[in-house]
């Protein structure tokens, strides 16, 4: 149970650490590794060298102090026995002059009295007892920590202890200086190695990440729909293979996109041609009805009138009047049919007049209140394809209002804003859910969308059940087209 808790905690730690490490980029990771390694190696080497050096130098100093002490003891034997204090003092002074590291030296006689020493002022208290050698020992060394640094104190018996003891103190100050110098040299080397390592690592990561960043850019471009971008292949490694694969994918996507665009364009052209042909056909039939059939019927009407005028017989006149009534009705119906197919007003007088007429017919037919505002279309002409499209769109939208909306009021606004033409068809009826509209089903709203798209326009539907419906159809207006159609003179007839 306890181990389980520990492993759980370890896992939490690992996640926390990974969150930090994982969040930094590859460059930082590699730099971190290199820097860490160099610093670790440098510090470890420094510590190891310091320890070894310290040890070696200490041992050396000890041996040196033993050598000096033995030398002093050997040379002091006669002097001590002869009680030549001055000779002893000179011996100690010479020894100190020959060994700069020697802190002090003194000689104790067989009774234990200090008979010569190198301390000018006074003998330091406690030093005497710090190192007591017995006469059967060869020598004895003690490391003393003084306020002037470590000192090796060595005592050697003179003449096997029968003449006294010689003591010397050898300072370790030189050892500390050497260790400090070596340490700082090592640290400088470490820092230089780290600097070189970081430069090399930065170069390496640049070489490593450059192709990866490029691939990221490429992927972003593809996601954004730009299939023209290609990544450069830098090296023959795994990243090179990945680059090839991504480039091939971009090629395939670009090809597919080209084909799709071509198909879409062909389809749009095809639909445009079908719509144009349909309008042309309707126009032709409407003209035919107007120009030939209706004129012939009008002639018949006038002929019948003449006939009635010339004959006094009431029977005949009644029959002729009946015929005139029938012909008049047929003429009226024909005219309505021709207008339904394609109103000549649309070609002769333009969109505004055609819509006014259509709206008037709808009012009469359905009893619906229809408000109309076209503030920016003062009899001016637009691109014929645009006029036809807008007319058909208004027609379809109003048909929907009459058929589905159960509305009391409808409204049509056509206005111009920022070089765009917007038609807004609105009703206060039952509304519907535009999201539920099937993309392939009914022709009505989909037809509006399609017609708009063919002229670079688009349809927005705002409706909710119980809230009425608003259709916004918006087209771009080309400035040049606007002008050229604005000043074209009206024309009637064929």
């Amino acid at each position: 149970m306890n181990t389980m808790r520990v492993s759980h905690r370890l896992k939490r730690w690992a996640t926390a650490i990974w969150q930090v490490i994982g969040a930094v980029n590859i460059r930082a990771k590699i730099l971190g590794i290199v820097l860490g390694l160099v610093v670790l190696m440098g510090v470890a080497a420094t510590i190891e060298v310091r320890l070894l050096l310290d040890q070696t130098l200490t041992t050396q100093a000890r041996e040196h102090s033993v050598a000096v002490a033995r030398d002093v003891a050997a040379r002091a034997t006669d002097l001590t026995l002869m009680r030549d204090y001055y000779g002893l003092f000179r011996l100690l002074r010479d020894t100190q002059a020959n060994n700069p590291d020697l802190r002090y030296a003194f000689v104790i006689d067989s009774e234990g009295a200090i008979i010569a020493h190198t301390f000018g002022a006074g003998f330091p208290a406690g030093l005497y007892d710090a190192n007591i050698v017995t006469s059967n020992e060869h020598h004895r060394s003690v490391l003393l920590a003084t306020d002037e640094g470590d000192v090796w104190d060595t005592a050697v018996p003179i003449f096997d202890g029968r003449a006294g003891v010689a003591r010397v103190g050898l300072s370790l100050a030189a050892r500390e200086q050497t260790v400090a110098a070596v340490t700082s040299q090592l640290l400088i080397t470490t820092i230089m190695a780290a600097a070189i390592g970081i430069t090399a690592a930065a170069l390496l990561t640049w070489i490593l990440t450059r192709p990866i960043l490029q691939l990221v850019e490429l992927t972003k471009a593809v996601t954004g729909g730009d299939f023209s971008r290609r990544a450069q292949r830098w090296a023959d490694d795994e990243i090179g293979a990945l680059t090839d694969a991504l480039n091939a994918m971009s090629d395939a996507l670009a090809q597919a996109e080209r084909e799709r665009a071509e198909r879409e364009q062909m389809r749009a052209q095809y639909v445009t041609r079908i719509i144009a042909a349909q309008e042309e056909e309707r126009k032709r039939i409407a003209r035919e009805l107007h120009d030939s059939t209706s004129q012939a019927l009008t002639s018949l009407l006038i002929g019948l009138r003449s006939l009635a005028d010339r004959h006094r017989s009431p029977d005949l006149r009644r029959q002729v009047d009946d015929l005139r009534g029938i012909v008049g009705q047929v003429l009226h119906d024909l005219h309505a049919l021709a207008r339904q197919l394609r109103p000549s007003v649309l070609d002769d007088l333009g969109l505004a007049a055609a819509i006014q007429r259509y709206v008037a017919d709808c009012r009469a037919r359905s009893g619906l209140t229809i408000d109309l505002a076209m503030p920016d279309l003062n009899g001016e002409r637009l691109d014929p394809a645009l006029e036809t499209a807008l007319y058909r769109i208004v027609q379809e939208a109003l048909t929907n209002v009459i058929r589905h909306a159960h509305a009391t009021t409808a409204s049509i606004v056509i206005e111009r804003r920022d070089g765009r033409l917007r038609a807004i068809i609105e009703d206060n009826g039952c509304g519907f859910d535009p999201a539920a509209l099937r993309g392939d089903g009914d022709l009505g709203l989909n037809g509006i969308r399609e017609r708009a798209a063919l002229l670079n326009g688009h349809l927005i539907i705002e409706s909710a059940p119980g809230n009425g419906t608003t259709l916004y159809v918006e087209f771009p207006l080309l400035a040049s087209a606007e002008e050229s159609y604005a000043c074209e003179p009206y024309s009637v007839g064929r």
Partner: protein
Amino acid sequence: MPVNRILLVDDHAVLRAGLRLLLDAQSDLHVVGEAEDSRTAAMQVAALQPDLILLDLSLTNGSGLAAIPSLRAAAPHARILVLTMHDDEGYVRQALAAGAHGYVLKRAADAELIAAIRAVLRGEMYIHPALTRRLLEDLLPQTPPVSPWESLSEREREVLALVARGYTAAEIAAQLNLSPKTVETYRTRGMEKLGLRSRAALVQFALDHNLLTPA
């Protein structure tokens, strides 16, 4: 009784023959010539100086409407009566603006034509009755707003101005930092205060009150 001289301009030969038969049967009317396109018509008018020109709007090569000014120039005293299939008031407006004196529909030619010719000859205007109503609708009085624009709240005015400029509810909501539902509420309330029943009525109102000038 003076006989009034009439020129027929129509591209349909059978119809011209029928008209000639009908009109010549009237003791006060006499057809002096016929033309089927606007160029011959202008020449005939200049040569014959008729009292009345019976003009179709669709001619062999071009529009009868476009021919009216030149016909008037060729015979300033001649009256012009349009006889046509087109029953849209747009054509009526344009014909009258160009200088015609009357407008008769072909489908009513048997009943109205002779009366119309006599009226126009007397110096009156004649327009087919079904068309006069549509022409005059513009002149019918508009219902005045219940309360003026200034009585609306700041927000209502902002919303209505954008509605009149044709923005969608979603666009207005985004622009004013409101929810679409709130936009709908302001719009409904503002319209009610103004006594307007539809967006088109609002656009017309805004136009009449000069509210659409760029903000």
